[in-house]
Structure formats: C-alpha cells, structure tokens
C-alpha cells in the first residue's frame, strides 16, 4: 500500500470515528509469533475490553496498540496515521497507557506521581506550568486522591495505588487510554471501584478506553464492546451480549458454562459448569 493511499484511508477512518486500528497485525518476541494477522477497530468514545485465556496475546496486542511493540507485519493506525511513524511525544499527547502492575520508585509521593503524567507537555525549563498544575489538581480531585497527595505511593493500599496511577493517566490529558489488567491483585470491591472509575472516565470526560480484563462478568458489565481472543486471533468482537455466549465460552476458554442475565445490570453473567476435563 502506498503512503498516499494510507493517508486517504486515514481521513476516512477519522470521519468514521475510528481512533485506533490494527491492520493485519502480526506480533511476536524473537521467533515466537504471538499474534497472527489480527484486525481490530477502536471507535471514539467507547470502552473496549479484550478477553481471552492466558497467553492468547491480549497484553501483546495492547502493547502494540500503545506503540510499545512494533508489528512484524501490518500496521497500527492512530487517527488514521501509522503510529510507528509519529513522533513519540505526539503519540503521548493522544494516547496514554497504564502497564500491568506498574512500579514507582520508593518514597515517590502521589502528587509527584500524578504530575509525571504531564511529561509530554513539559520541557526541562517548563516543569510545572499553570496548565500542569490545574490538570494535576483536577485529576487528583476527580479520582478522589487529593487528600493523599503528599503520601508515598508505596504506602497506599492496592486500590488507592491503582487510583493514583489512573489519576496520572488522566493528568496526561489523552483522549485514548490503554489499561493492561487494571484490576490485577485487587479484591472484588476494589476491582469494582476501579472499573466504575474507568466508566466515569468514558461517560463523564469522554475518554476512549481499551483494556485487558480477566473477569468476564466485570468485562461484560463495564464495556461497550468485547474482543475475545484465542491463539493470537480475534474469535469474536461486538457488544457483550453478542460475544459472551455458551458456544463462544466453550470455543475460546474450553469452558462449559451457563450464561444468564446479570440480575443487576442485565449484561451477560457467566456461571461455570466445568472445564469438561
């Protein structure tokens, strides 16, 4: 495909509200191919969750969408432009990402952590502008972390810590957010708390979110779209009710299960029967 053809297709993508697209993407580490010829569209203002068994390539896909991994074949397009050709700093003003179990240096305060989110907007001589300050103050308030601003991150509980990191991503001010298993290591109430925060990010401040989630019921409840993966391919993608079906659970997870309506939200609820093993 020539560059002009890509540009033409690019503006069409933007017009269709497709912020992020994976086009025939293959990904791997060394010789090992993890994702093979995958296509995916992420639409403006939606919450998309990628689900699938361990080792199916979910996190690898998310890394490629966030430009942490260069595809061995195919391209990732951000707003119609090839993400690998864009300046790193420009990408960081459009797309923010939160790795799985991120680590912060010992003793770093919540306020300093969240302020780091402003990095793409800063330079060595401009490290704390009025814009930075108001964005960070807003992000702290919005995630209910303002009272903890002077506490070291390593002294927080798991749920508070994840809120601090999300606050950092929020302060970065990007339209798009990629979250790799934001609920790992959290107990159920904190998982729900974090996912409610993610939904508010989408509904109240218009963030487009792509995340990797393990819990199918929570994924179904808090996502507009689900992408089910197995062996590096997309098996099904669509609204939760269309994706979470008994045949699909058998195909993707090798799980025998009943799917009933969630009594609270009406979204699909998976009740496992067994693996059939």
């Amino acid at each position, binding site marked *: 495909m020539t560059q002009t053809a890509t540009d033409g297709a690019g503006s069409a993508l933007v017009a269709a509200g497709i912020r992020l697209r994976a086009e025939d993407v293959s990904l791997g580490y060394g010789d090992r191919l993890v994702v093979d010829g995958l296509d995916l569209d992420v639409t403006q203002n939606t919450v998309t969750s990628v689900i699938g068994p361990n080792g199916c390539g979910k996190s690898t896909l998310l890394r490629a969408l966030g430009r942490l991994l260069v595809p061995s074949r195919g391209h990732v397009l951000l707003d119609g432009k090839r993400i690998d050709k864009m300046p790193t700093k420009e990408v960081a003003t459009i797309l923010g990402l939160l790795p799985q179990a991120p680590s*912060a*240096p010992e003793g770093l305060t919540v306020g300093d952590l969240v302020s780091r989110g402003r990095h793409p907007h800063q330079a060595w001589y401009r490290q*704390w502008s009025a814009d930075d300050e108001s964005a960070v103050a807003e992000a702290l308030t919005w995630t209910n972390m303002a009272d903890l601003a002077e506490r070291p991150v390593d002294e927080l509980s798991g749920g508070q810590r994840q809120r601090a990191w999300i606050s950092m991503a929020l302060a970065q001010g990007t339209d798009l957010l990629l979250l790799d298993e934001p609920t790992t290591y959290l107990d159920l109430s904190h998982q729900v708390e974090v996912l409610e925060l993610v939904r508010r990010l989408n509904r109240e401040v218009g963030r487009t979110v792509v995340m990797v989630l393990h819990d199918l019921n929570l994924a179904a409840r808090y996502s507009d779209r689900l992408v089910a993966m197995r062996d590096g391919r997309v098996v099904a993608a669509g609204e939760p009710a269309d994706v979470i079906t008994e045949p699909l659970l058998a195909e993707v997870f090798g799980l025998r299960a009943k799917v009933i309506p969630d009594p609270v939200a009406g979204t699909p609820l998976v009740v496992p029967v067994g693996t059939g093993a």
Partner: protein
Amino acid sequence: MTATVEKARGRTPGLVPGRDPLRLGRFSGVWRPRTVVVLVVAAAVLVVGAALNIGRGEFPISVGEVLSVLFGGGDQAQRFIVLDLRLPRTLTGALVGGALAVAGAILQAVARNPLAAPDIIGITMGASAAAVAVIVLSSGFGAVGALAGAVGLPVAALLGGLLTATSIYVLAWRRGVHGFRLVLVGIGMNAILYALVNWLLIAAQVYEAARAQVWLNGSLNARGWEHVVPVGVALVVLVPAALVLAHVLGGLQFGDDTARGLGIRVDAARTALLVVAVGLAAVATASAGPIAFVALVSPQIAQRLVGAPRPPIAASLMVGATLVVLSDLVARTAFGSAELPVGVITAVLGAPYLLHLLVRHGREARA
C-alpha cells in the same frame, strides 16, 4: 495555620499539596525549600572547608585571610601562596568530587540501583587501568612508550573509562538495558580490570609501580591549574547537560513501558545519560586518580538530605565536592606530619556503606 505561614512567606499556596509552583517567565518548576536549604548549607560548608584546607601548609594562613584573598583582598605573598600554589589542589578536589557524585547520581538513577556507581561497576577501574598502563609502559618501550607518554594520562584514562562503559553496555544489552544486569556485568568487569591493574603493577619497574600506586589511591598532591582545567571544562559542559536530562531521568524511574507511554525515547535518553556520566567519571579519575566511593556515597547522602525518591543531580554535586574537600582536610591533618592520599579517607568512609548496601540487598533478595 498553614495558610498564615504561606502568607507570611509572601507566597500563594499551590493547587497540589507539596508542589508549590516557582515560575519566572517561561521557566517553571516546583518550589522545593528543602533542596534549597541543602544546597546553601553544603555550599557554606564547602567554602569553609576549602578555606581551612587552603590555609593549611608550611606557611599557615587563617580562614579569614584565605577568604579575603579569594574575594580579592590579601597582600601579594598571600595572593601568590593561595591562588598559585594551594587553590588548585582544593579546587581540583571539589571539582573531581562534584563530577564523581553527578556521575554516580546519574548511573544509580538510570539503573535504579544504588550499587550502580562508576567505582563499583568498573568505569573508574577502566580509567585507572588505562592510566596505569601509560605510567608503566611509557618508560619502557622506546618509541611506543614515548607516544603513550605524550598521549598523556588524562586522555588514556578518559578512553579507558569510555571503552569500559561501552563494553559493559554491550554485554548487558538484552533488548534494552536493565539495572541489575548492568550492575552484575559491571562488577565482573571491575574484577577483570582489577586483575589487569595488578598484573601491570607486578610487571612494572619498582619506581613506576610506586608512582602508579600513589595515583591509584586517589591523590590531590601537587595538583596545579593544569589539573583544574580539564575537569572544570568537563563540569561546565556536562553538568548543565545532566541538569537538562534530569527531567527525562524522572520519567525513567518508572518501568520502561510507563516511560515510553509518557513520550520518552527510552533508549536514546538512557544512552545520552550514560555518556554524560561516563565522561564525568573518566575525566575526574584522570585528574585525581580513582578517589574511592565518592560516586557511590555522595548521591545517596544527597538523596536522603533532600528527601527525594531518586539521587538528585545538583545536591549530589555539592555533597560530592564537600565530601572530597573535607576528606582531603582530614587526610592532611589527622595524622600529624604524615599526609595521606584523600582516597584513603573516602575509602574508610565509603566501605562500611557499601557493606550496608550489600547486606540489605542480600536480605531483600532472600525476602
């Protein structure tokens, strides 16, 4: 109450607790009073320590008189003794200490490991090996030796440091450089180079071996302006570079994925920081020999004084300079007429800290 304190200081409190703004035109940063206090106190201690050190000698001069000469006063004899004879020694010490400390601060922060100081991971040892080779070989091998002598000890030390750092970097590279790997490879490299230095000393003539040994202890004896200039130039160029890069260094404190997500070109930033650090460490070693443990200890002291989550550049500079000047003062006064090399004192101060780090790391590894 906090509000009244803020008002008394004439500052409006910031919107984010603990991050009051400091803005001047296009420049903006966070007002960190503790850092400013540390810098001012360290500068004061450095000036007094330097004055004491300069005043010491066969012809003693009081602190007040030294300071008056430094600020343009004093009679002609005092001016000659202070400015021409004694200032270069202390100035070399301060500059070398500052350079080593900044090199240590950068390496420790990049590797996210306090053990990653240039004197632990072999960079100063690489510079030393090259310098010792020049000292030992320059008298022996006719034309080749003469050439080595002409190239000069500082250049050899600089090349040795850079070559060692490059080797460590290449050997530690596995799809990026990770702190712990860098430290392990560096410690191995240090051992190899140490063996090389010993072999050179054994192979050398007695006289050359003794000369090399004095240099290896890290000494400020007989330092003149010709020693001040190279390290001074290196500091003037590389410390501003380090301060500019410090902003990126903050982002590198998280994992690589987070740093990339913040728009940092991680590998390019890390390489630039390593080049700055190695340049400082090698030039410092060339000027005064491998003054032990200054690069390891100073950034850690500075970090604790300032209360920062990583070694701070400016505070490390001041702490390193002060540490070397005070150590030199102790080395020259504490043992009567015997003047020890400054490196002996810094080694006595630094070795227990290294042991403490190793024990703590061992415990953490087992935990």
